[in-house]
């Protein structure tokens, strides 16, 4: 059986609004290489953007000296994206009802959970918040 190697692409972006688009473009390029359909790539771009925005605004409190670290893992049957901040602010472990409390945060997590096949949110520990998102090849 041929060995399937996992390819990983790692990015580190400053915690400044707008830099999520750098990650969007990279994630889209990886997904295109993997052969995902255009509509799924659009889903991925939005989910990745929202994860990065959460990390920038809430996790890292928009401190440009702190980074958001992203790992794109190409696996045989899926693309796994991990977005991690440096954990100054705590992220909720699940999306609140959209529009409740901080309206921006609610919609971002709502979109992530509705666009991706699997979502895991790990709130702040010593090493920061992390969102793990999975997009499977066949949906």
């Amino acid at each position, binding site marked *: 059986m041929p060995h399937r190697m996992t390819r990983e692409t790692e990015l580190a972006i400053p915690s*400044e*609004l*707008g*830099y*999520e*688009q750098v990650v969007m473009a990279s994630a889209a390029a990886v997904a295109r290489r993997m052969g995902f359909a255009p*509509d799924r790539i*659009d*889903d991925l771009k*939005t989910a990745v*953007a*929202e994860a990065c*925005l959460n990390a920038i605004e809430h996790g890292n409190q928009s401190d440009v000296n702190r980074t958001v670290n992203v790992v794109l893992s190409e696996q045989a049957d899926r693309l796994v994206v991990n977005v991690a901040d440096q954990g100054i602010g705590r992220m909720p472990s699940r999306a609140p009802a*959209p*529009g409740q409390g901080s*309206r*921006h945060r609610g*919609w*971002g997590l*709502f*979109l992530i959970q*509705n666009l991706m096949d699997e979502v895991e949110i790990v709130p702040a520990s010593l090493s920061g918040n992390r969102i793990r998102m999975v997009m499977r090849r066949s949906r």
Partner: protein
Amino acid sequence: MDKQVQVNLRQQGSLPILEFVGEMTTIAEDSIQAAYRQINLGGYNQIALDFAKCGYINSAGIATLIGMVTQARRAGHQLFAYGLTPHHQKIFRMVGLADYMLICDSEADVLARLKP
């Protein structure tokens, strides 16, 4: 790096059109609210939202739109939207925005649907 959306207000006959150009994000709120206030003062019943030149809409932009749509509903305005990509149409449906505005194919489609 976050670029402010430009909101242009124009008229097509008796229909005011809000044209969004650029990126609809956190920074968009003031521009959108200012443009909507201008329309509100004009006493219009129907308003069109043109997204053809708006390439990026994030959750903050969506929250701003929801705020504007809520005001429009209270004021009794009928909203039309066009120029949305299929992906953005899906997002609008997902968050419920499509419940409060009619999503059309083009400006011509909007004009054809206007009540006399």
